[in-house]
């Protein structure tokens, strides 16, 4: 009885629904078609290549575009770091170790054409110019500074029971010499060259840069993994990107408000044949002796983003103390190549970091060239380099297709003096070297650009840095997150690890079938896929909660990840 009644009810409901539907259908529609929907020529949407590879490229390009759209320096940097909670695996380039045969790798990774200049000869009498008078004036000051530095350092070494090792000694002495020489040079020149009064001097600044390099052979595990998937099998041996992080600490760096003039025209800089002739270091950088590590992408040109800092590097003094550790068996040109490699790496990294504060990064191309000058010295031997940064695109297919190249030109090391005699006198002072050094100071940063031209990828005149935001909470969050990423502070909980016994008894041989599956590899969680924002939010105590103690919405601090 009961079931029958239930059946009737259902049938009645169904009938009602059908009737309703039919009545809706039957009603006459008001046919109004906008004319705008039709055009004379049919406009079809773009036909997208839906293959796996091109979809991947498409998402990457979209991500790069998203980075470009972001208004502030800090947000761009956080955005680059968003995909990895534990940081990227990066090749560790630094200024304390240049392995044997590092020059081809350096040229490939920085897309740099190296021009070796001949050592300039002493000028003959008839070619004297106004610089000669300055050199003559600076000469005595510099000689005195050199003698003073050597004497004081030698005197101080007596006090130590165990003197530091040779590399450390060279670094300490060179630091003194570079500071004194820089001081003398500025004193002599600043009267005649006004731009030297506006430079900012960084003492042992922190220079860091992050970029992606394409055209490197894939590692074995990537090949194996791709070969295991039918849709990736054909691309298994395609080159893949390597991420690079440079870390350096020069003795001294000079910055100015304006840019140095360029020495290569845009036509010369865009040369695909030249770009394709660049050395290509296809094998892993670890084969040379470089190491890899996990860290966040950091770009620092020695200071934090600020409103009115001198933003353009003029001159940096790099250390060559580690050259002492190179075996002599590497050949005659080895030292020279190491110096070239160091000059290219440090100049590229410093310029990249500066460009980063103007909205450019390894995925967003420069719109104007950047220049800097680099000196590598141990007090006695000085090598001078000039660098012009034209492009930052080295990742992915750009390594083959990008017509732009960067340029570096420099000389072999030249002695500033032959030796310091036992009486503390400087022997055989080389005016020619001093002259070249002073020329670097004299070159005035003259290129001025409008703000729009300088910062094309920023959020306009009112929004360039996180400090420009109106929302105080957002400012604080961005500033804090940006510096937290740059600090390389270890994560509170270490990266999850598969222990050896787990590999044997849980992964390779499933011997513990009854045990609860709690570990990440048993629950299909890839810790590397954890993104930067996947963390517990900060709890706001009730007493400090905006909107009163009972406000449930304000329990956690807001995050402003880009």
């Amino acid at each position, binding site marked *: 009885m009961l079931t029958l009644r239930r059946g009737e009810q259902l049938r009645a409901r169904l009938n009602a629904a059908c009737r309703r539907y039919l009545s809706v259908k039957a009603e006459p529609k008001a046919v109004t078609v906008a004319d705008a929907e039709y055009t004379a020529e049919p406009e079809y949407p773009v036909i997208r290549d839906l293959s796996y590879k091109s979809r991947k490229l498409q998402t990457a390009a979209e991500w790069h575009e998203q980075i470009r759209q972001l208004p502030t320096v800090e947000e761009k940097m956080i955005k680059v770091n968003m995909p990895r909670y534990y940081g990227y695996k990066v090749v560790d380039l630094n200024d304390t170790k240049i392995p044997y045969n590092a020059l081809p790798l350096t040229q490939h990774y920085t897309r740099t054409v190296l021009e070796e200049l001949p050592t300039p000869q002493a000028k003959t009498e008839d070619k004297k110019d106004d610089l000669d008078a300055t050199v003559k004036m600076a000469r005595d000051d510099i000689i005195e500074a050199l003698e*003073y530095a050597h004497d*004081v350092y030698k005197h101080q070494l007596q006090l130590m029971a*165990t003197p530091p090792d040779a590399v450390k000694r060279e670094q300490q002495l060179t630091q003194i010499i570079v500071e004194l020489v820089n001081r003398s040079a500025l004193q002599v020149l600043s009267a005649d060259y006004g731009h030297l009064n506006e430079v900012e001097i*960084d003492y*042992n600044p922190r220079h860091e840069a992050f970029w992606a390099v394409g055209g490197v052979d894939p590692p074995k595990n990537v090949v194996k993994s791709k070969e295991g998937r039918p849709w990736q099998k054909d691309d298994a041996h395609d080159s893949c990107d390597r991420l690079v992080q440079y870390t350096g600490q020069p003795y001294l760096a000079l910055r100015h408000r304006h840019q140095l003039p360029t020495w290569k025209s845009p036509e010369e800089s865009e040369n695909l044949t030249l770009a394709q002739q660049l050395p290509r270091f296809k094998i892993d950088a670890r084969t040379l002796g470089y190491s890899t590590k996990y860290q966040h992408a950091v770009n620092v040109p020695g200071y934090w983003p*600020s409103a009115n800092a001198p933003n353009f590097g003029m001159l940096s003094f790099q250390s060559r103390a580690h050259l002492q550790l190179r075996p002599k068996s590497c050949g005659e040109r080895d030292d020279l190549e190491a110096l070239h490699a160091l000059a290219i790496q440090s100049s590229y990294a410093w310029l990249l970091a500066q460009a980063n504060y103007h909205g450019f990064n390894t995925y967003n191309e420069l719109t104007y060239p950047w220049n800097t000058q680099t000196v590598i010295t141990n007090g006695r031997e000085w090598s001078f380099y000039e660098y012009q940064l034209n492009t930052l695109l080295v990742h992915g297919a750009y390594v083959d297709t990008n017509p732009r190249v960067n340029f570096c030109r420099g000389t072999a090391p030249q002695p500033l003096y032959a030796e310091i005699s036992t009486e503390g006198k400087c022997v055989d002072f080389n005016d020619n070297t001093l002259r070249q050094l002073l020329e670097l100071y004299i070159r005035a940063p003259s290129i001025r650009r409008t703000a729009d031209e300088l910062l094309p990828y920023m959020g306009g005149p009112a929004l360039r840095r996180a400090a420009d935001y109106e929302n105080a909470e957002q*400012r604080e969050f961005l500033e804090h997150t940006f510096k937290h990423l740059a600090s390389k502070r270890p994560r509170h909980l270490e990266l999850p690890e598969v222990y050896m016994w787990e590999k044997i008894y849980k992964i390779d041989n499933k011997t513990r079938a009854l045990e609860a599956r709690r570990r990440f590899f048993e629950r299909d969680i890839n810790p590397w896929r954890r993104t930067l924002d996947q963390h517990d939010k900060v709890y706001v105590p009730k007493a400090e909660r905006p909107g009163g103690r009972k406000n449930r919405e304000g329990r956690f601090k807001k995050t402003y990840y880009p």
Partner: protein
Amino acid sequence: MRLTNKLYAQHIGWHFKKHWQVQGRRVPRETGAAAELLKMGIQVKTPDELLNDKKEFRLVDIVETVPKPIVEDETHPNWHTTACHMFKDNNVLLGGLPQAQVLTNTIEINSFPQQIEDAISNGQYSKVVDRNVQNAIFSSHLLDAQQVKLPKVKLIDRPAYNLPRLYGISHERRNRLIINKLLFEIEKLAGRSVTVRRKLMDNVTFQTLISKDNDLLSFILSGDKLISSSRALDAVKGKFNGELPDLYPMKCVVSIPKRHIYTENNFYPIRSEISCSHPHTIVSFFDKTIVGNIHGSDVSKTQFYGRSMLKAFVAAAARAKQINGVTFCSDLQKPIVIQCVHTDGREFHFGVFQLNTLNLDSNNTTKNYWFHRGSIEMFNDCSYKTGRPYIDGYNSEPFRILNAFYNSS
């Protein structure tokens, strides 16, 4: 889940080990057999005595990569029978400035020498200089990108609470940068005629040994920057009189630890043969995480002043002994004047020391002079406030004084 069960299931060897440990702790029960045997005159020996011969172990002298530290006893090459009071960089005088005065036989004058006072009041600076100085403060205190682990911060009311460790510019670097940048600014103002007569040197050490009223005093102090000059500073004109403060019941060497190991040599960082070797100004940094009282309490203001004076005194004394010989301890023919800047990056203390005598005995009528004013703060606070750089209470006075010091001759 019970841990014991699990262990048993997985590792029976662990249980055997535990069993062995428990059994190994058993004490043999006293049976009275030994006493009976002794009564019968039979010697009782343990099995250990019979089976294991006694071996004498001798220390083998192993050559290690790191040389062994020399034992600090009478065998030490620098051991002296008379103990000496050692004053180093991480210590301050308990009595502060009064103790420093008694120790170094110095009278205090609460102003700078007239010539420097004039230079300070005459100094006129454009707005550009003022802005540059403020930029220097920003770039050394906030905008420098060094990030090292900073010392632990403790809350006074909650000492057990562990705050997150901050990463930022180290104290030493902050001070180095601010001094370098201020000096760069000053040298731009001074022009080449003055700057060629000065030389700058970082991280120098002064060392000297002095006796006072039968007490030996050894000072090893560092100057974080030494400005040397090609001409010695002129002695301050005028005669100054004053009384030494009374420290009773304290003795003037209180809180300076005694050591038997010390060296008697005198060290001034620049050889006297060099043209630009005269001390002009020393700059020393004060980091409260390194410098403190030997009993651990915080450094008071007068102790801070005392430290500046001692630094100036030791630099002057080391120079005087370098010129006149290590054993020299009487009145100087030509007084040595040295200026001292003592700073923690925010607070600046300036002083001028004139060394008239190295005879520090309390009955000596010639006194040394210490000209100084109270310390001045360059700013109240310089930090990021809600994501923006912020400076509060900027004061240009320290820069003016530093400039006057640099230009004085």
